[in-house]
């Protein structure tokens, strides 16, 4: 009897969703071979390029992912973009199943006039810049302004505000690239206003992240007690919510609002029930202020609480505006895309034809590209488990298309033929060691490479022909 050929699975992306997909696949079956394709030279997605550089413990979750990439059944193809270097069909020819776990790297817009003025940028770009994302090292950001506005009240908005006010001492303990540390050290920002459309009970940030803003060496957190008070509908919502962390968060907001504001060189103003209406330019053409309106909260028909403008306006001076109103997935050529939700249309992780609703055999999706850009790192674990369950059910049922070219060596052959210079797991291990060693010399967690060219040089490889 001949052994059955291994199940070949291609995973697009190497963030948490991809890594949990790999983990669940490996745990479920011994006879498989997984190829992970990552467009950047380094794996782990937003853990490396999103999670704040002063939150090294959270970045440390990659320790749980590392052994997966070293498993003999797994191969990493880093610096390979599916869509640019390989087509989806190239993967489908070589694998029984393709799992798209490419995340959500575009940003949502506020939809207000002036959004595209110089000085107004998506939080996505700023976050990528301070994390040394190779696509964002050249971001134009003028930190010589004195006031900034962050629109949105999720944890990303809190990250952005906090990073803007870190002291040189705090900055030097991070793995931020030197260009970002230098720019932030020289920053003249004094005031940061975080604007929430709705009230304290609807804010998406979590309590520990808020509390951290009260412990910063160089900045004080100020909340207006009137804005921290709950309207009756929100109070009822908090009261009946089984999630006690909500009540705790509201209590924390009110405690901060009631406490005296410590004297620090910089101030973060956390605002509620305020929406931007328009970004106003200064004489140099760059954004200079935000015209905003105060909202009242009204119960929406289905039980939610919505913001409704009161007409009462104010102008907030702001030389920088960061919109942190959400991320959006980008389509992967060859797979359908739902523009409204910004995800690949799917049922429990099986990619479906949007017109007929029928599953597309052998196509799966996991993570932010599956359910939208919400949830913490761990949310991707049950999410990926669901996708893998569908995939393995389909494999058992014989529903996966047989690949024309299942020989694993054919992937390398194709990349070579196309002149794609990819990095494998041992390359990544070497990069990781070099980054950590460079960090150790400066008393920092690591010093990141920020370009593929520099990585290839450090590995003693020639850069691919342009």
């Amino acid at each position, binding site marked *: 009897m001949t052994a059955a050929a291994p199940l070949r699975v291609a995973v697009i992306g190497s963030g948490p969703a991809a890594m949990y997909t790999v983990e669940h696949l490996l745990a479920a079956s011994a006879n498989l071979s997984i190829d992970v394709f990552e467009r950047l030279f380094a794996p782990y997605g937003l853990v490396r390029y999103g999670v704040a550089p002063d939150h090294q413990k*959270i970045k440390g979750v990659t320790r749980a992912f590392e052994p997966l990439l070293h498993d003999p059944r797994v191969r990493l193809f880093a610096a390979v973009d599916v869509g640019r270097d390989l087509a989806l069909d190239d993967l489908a020819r070589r694998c029984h199943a393709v799992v798209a776990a490419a995340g959500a790297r575009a940003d949502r817009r506020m939809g207000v006039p002036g959004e595209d003025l110089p000085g107004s940028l998506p939080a996505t770009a700023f976050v990528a810049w301070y994390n040394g994302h190779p696509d964002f090292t050249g971001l134009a950001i003028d930190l010589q302004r004195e006031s900034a506005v962050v629109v949105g009240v999720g944890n990303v908005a809190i990250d952005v505000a906090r990073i803007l006010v870190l002291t040189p001492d705090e900055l030097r303990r991070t793995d931020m690239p030197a260009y970002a540390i230098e720019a932030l050290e020289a920053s003249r920002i004094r005031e940061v206003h975080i604007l929430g459309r709705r009230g304290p009970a609807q804010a998406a940030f979590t309590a520990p992240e808020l509390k951290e803003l009260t412990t910063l060496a160089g900045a004080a957190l100020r909340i207006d007690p009137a804005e921290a008070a709950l309207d009756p509908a929100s109070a009822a919502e908090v009261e009946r*919510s089984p*999630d006690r962390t909500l009540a705790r968060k509201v209590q924390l907001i009110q405690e901060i609002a009631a406490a005296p504001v410590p004297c620090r060189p910089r101030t973060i103003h956390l605002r509620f029930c305020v929406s931007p209406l328009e970004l106003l330019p200064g004489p140099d053409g760059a954004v200079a202020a935000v015209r905003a309106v105060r909202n009242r909260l009204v119960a929406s028909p289905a*039980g*939610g*609480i919505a913001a409704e403008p009161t007409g009462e306006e104010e102008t907030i001076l702001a030389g920088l505006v960061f919109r942190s109103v959400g991320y959006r997935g980008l389509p992967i050529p060859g797979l359908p895309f739902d523009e409204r*939700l910004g995800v690949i249309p799917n049922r429990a*992780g099986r990619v479906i034809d949007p017109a007929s609703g029928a599953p597309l055999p052998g196509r799966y999706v996991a993570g932010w590209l*599956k359910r*939208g850009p919400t949830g913490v790192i761990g949310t991707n674990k049950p999410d990926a488990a669901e996708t893998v369950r569908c995939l393995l059910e389909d494999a058992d049922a014989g529903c996966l298309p047989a690949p024309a070219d299942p020989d694993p060596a054919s992937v390398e052959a194709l990349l070579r033929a196309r002149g794609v210079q990819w990095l494998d797991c041992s390359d990544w291990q070497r990069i990781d060691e070099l980054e950590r060693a460079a960090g150790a010399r400066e008393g920092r967690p690591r010093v990141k490479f920020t370009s593929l060219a520099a990585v290839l040089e450090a590995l003693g490889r020639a850069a691919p022909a342009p």
Partner: protein
Amino acid sequence: MKLAEVLATKGTGVACIAADAPVSAAIAELAARNIGALVALDAAGAVAGILSERDIVRALAAGRPLDRLAVADLMTPGVICGRLDDDLEAVLAAMTDGHFRHLPVVDGSTLVGLVTTADLAQALLRSLAGRLVTLELRLEAEIDESGVGR
């Protein structure tokens, strides 16, 4: 978490039926799709009501002549619709309090999906499980760092 996230993994499309269609057509549709409710649309394509299996059971129990009735005769009219950015927990609480199990979801005036209390409960469970995994990861990182257990 918003309703958009619940819809994202449910697949597109909502099972709909014209409000003036015969109830027999609705029953056939419910059976064929193995679902519990249909969204009834008026002639303009707007949401007119919801016809659930309960409405049909109730009519049967009352001895009403199903073969001579239209969807509009049995459906619950004037249904509440959710919006893509409504918060899951608040909606789930409202559905539980109001004893309705199906909620059409609209984007502006376009019907984009239908969620059930079971969908919402499952999504909530997944979100809580995710928070738990993250807390565990952080705890493990703390333990690694402090050297406890070594």
